């Protein structure tokens, strides 16, 4: 995926009536891609790109960057192509082990994130972000309103798997600004031939 291609992806926008996160949560846990500045710390990314305030960052107890648990949000750097996963506090000893800077962090020292980039290269890039558990409701609405890139087939699987209740709370769908019927979604998602769609979701009760 190239950052320049994003503009050419079909932009599918949902307007939902009522709480929407539970319907879109599968996409968030699987991972979605966003356009973001790079070369900044994880802490700055969370604040400035995701819009997380201090209280929300406090709830983000486990931060996984490129598969490795991060202890220091200020020193770990976001790069083009980074995969960042966010989780609230998890149960169990291993849940405690994966907390950032926790007492048991030594238990997973073999996989802990260590920043190797000596000089931050500031710029813009694509970041894959995964949001788990309680954070989905916290961060999901804002992310979805801003828009995320997901694979066309994942999107089609998601929409075709939705129940009648989902479509009842769907007030409208547009493709590149033009109204679209639900039945047209699979074909529209495949329009670009690039295997990706740009998805945005707005809702009165999304808090976004």
């Amino acid at each position, binding site marked *: 995926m190239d950052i320049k291609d994003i503009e050419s992806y079909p932009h599918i926008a949902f307007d939902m009536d009522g709480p929407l996160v*539970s319907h879109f*949560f*599968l996409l968030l*846990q*699987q991972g979605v891609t966003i356009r973001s500045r790079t070369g900044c710390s994880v802490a700055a990314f969370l604040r400035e790109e995701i819009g997380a305030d201090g209280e929300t960052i406090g*709830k983000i*107890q*486990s931060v*996984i960057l490129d*598969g*490795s*648990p991060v202890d220091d949000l200020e020193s770990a750097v976001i790069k083009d192509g980074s995969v960042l*996963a966010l*989780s*609230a*506090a*998890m*149960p*169990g*000893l*291993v*849940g*405690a*082990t*994966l907390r950032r800077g926790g*007492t*048991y*962090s*030594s*238990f*997973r*020292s*073999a*996989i802990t994130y260590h920043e190797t980039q000596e000089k931050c290269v500031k710029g813009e890039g694509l970041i894959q972000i*995964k949001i*788990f*558990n*309680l954070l*989905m409701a916290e961060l999901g609405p804002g992310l979805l309103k801003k828009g995320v890139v997901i694979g066309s087939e994942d999107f089609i699987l998601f929409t075709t798997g939705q*129940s009648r209740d989902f479509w009842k709370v769907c007030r409208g769908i547009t493709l590149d600004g033009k109204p679209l019927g639900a039945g047209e979604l699979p074909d529209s998602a495949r329009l670009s031939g690039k295997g990706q769609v740009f998805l945005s979701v707005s809702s009165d009760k999304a808090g976004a």
Partner: protein
Amino acid sequence: MDKILRIDMGADGGPKTSSVPLGQYAGFGGRAMTSAIVSKEVPPLCHPLGAENKLVIAPGLLSGTASAMSGRISVGGKSPLTGGIKEANSGGQPSQVLARLGYAAIVLEGKPKNDDLYKVFINKDGVKISVDNSLKMLPNYDLVAKMKAEYGDKISCISIGPAGEMRMASATVAFTDMELRPTRHAGRGGLGAVMGSKGVKAIVLDDTGMPMRAPKDPEKFKAANKRFVDGLKGHAVTGQGLPAYGTNVLTNILNEVGGYPTYNFKQGRFDGASKISGETQAETEKTRGANPTHGCHRGCVIQCSGTYNDKDGHYLTKQPEYETVWAHGGNCGISDLDKIAMMDFLDDNYGIDTIEMGATIAVAMDAGLAEFGDADAAIQMIHEVGKGTHLGRIFGGGAAATGKAYGVERVPVVKGQAMPAYDPRAVQGIGVTYATSPMGADHTAGYAVAQNVLKVGGDVNALKPEGQVELSRNLQIATAAIDSTGMCLFIAFAVLDQPDTFQALLDLLNSFYGMNLTGDGVTDLGKKVLSMERDFNARAGFTSKQDRLPEYFKSEKFAPHNVTFGVKDEDLDKVFNW
């Protein structure tokens, strides 16, 4: 709770019961009680299925009281799976009921002289034991339905399924939940087989007419309970994460860090993880009219359990736990949540440990008996166990037995017991506990209470390599103590983070018994329990050689981090130096 019920199943003329004072076991509950009786009374070299072994069932110190979270029950004996001492504990209703009936333990001793199958009924009027061969080979759900029809719906049941009757090394002891379903299990180590060897199919409990156990200082007890509950409800894990998603909330994050054992511990990531995650599971349950937030016993305020309905909205099983979803899911390459839920039901019904069964299926898949990802084949393997076919008898013997039968090298066991859902190469500290716990590979053996609260063993520098050994030691000590209170281990999250919640726990114990227990006292209890267990295993022939992970964990690199288990043997041997 001032007496022990001993049932001699091998007595002349049929089973004989005796109710005896606590004596030297006074002050013990849960794991401390089971391990004390087993270490003192069971010859370590006896056959686990022989007359000399004993099955001990003990509620916790606060079971049967108004204390929140006090409904765990411990089952102990010499394990047919590991050959060492075993304590497996469970939720469900029987702990509260047994404690209110006044029993600190039930001890099944001896062995019947014929093949008759017995049921035991205990209420306020006493104990009645009767032969009931109509129960033979009944699965747990059918058995409980029959007991309900016979004794009414105010009962709770402790039972074994066909696996226990067939004395399989992966057999569980089942405990009914609040809805009188046999969904909670003392799963690990094959203690269901020990119950089967005693010829006992079911223990039916009815506490009608029995009051709640009364504390010595009711006011202090009530205040401590309130602080304890507030602490649990106020904590992010016990108050929010667990109630919303259950333990399966761990799937996504374990997978993300590459610590999720997949395809029989070959790699740390599973492509289908999000399809079987706690988030997906909870959403599926809600969509189908089931309940993702539910307690396993009355008095639970964490509510990490739930119910799982099939596609038509009918009850299928309780909400499968993280370890179950992993064992039958990622470890076998299966990403169909409905099929995994079906396997959970079958395990409960036949009375099989879900972790051991999942690990066994994965080993069988590695042996070429089925393809990884073939859910129908996995379900069929469980049926083989339940029916007791020749193949099922091998699977029912567990992962190690199956690995031997089929010549598989990659068998993830310690002391013969299958590892749970965390790869010890990615999270090496838990590998220390897997290796050294007297119980065999057990994720709950080192679980509870931070040393920054208890100061067990003094201050630990967790950043030093040896810190992993020291932390594992401290965790095992604290866990042994918590297991003895009958408290759910999940209280550990709040206790770990909130010293006041830990103090509330101490205050609950102190106000109930009129004691003055301190953090040091808790530590001493944990050490005492572990010492008894280690001593039993040593007398059973265990040496440091049993305190090791399988060799391939030191040589096979684990993707995506390509790590091997690096804790040295000499460091593992220091875990119990205190």
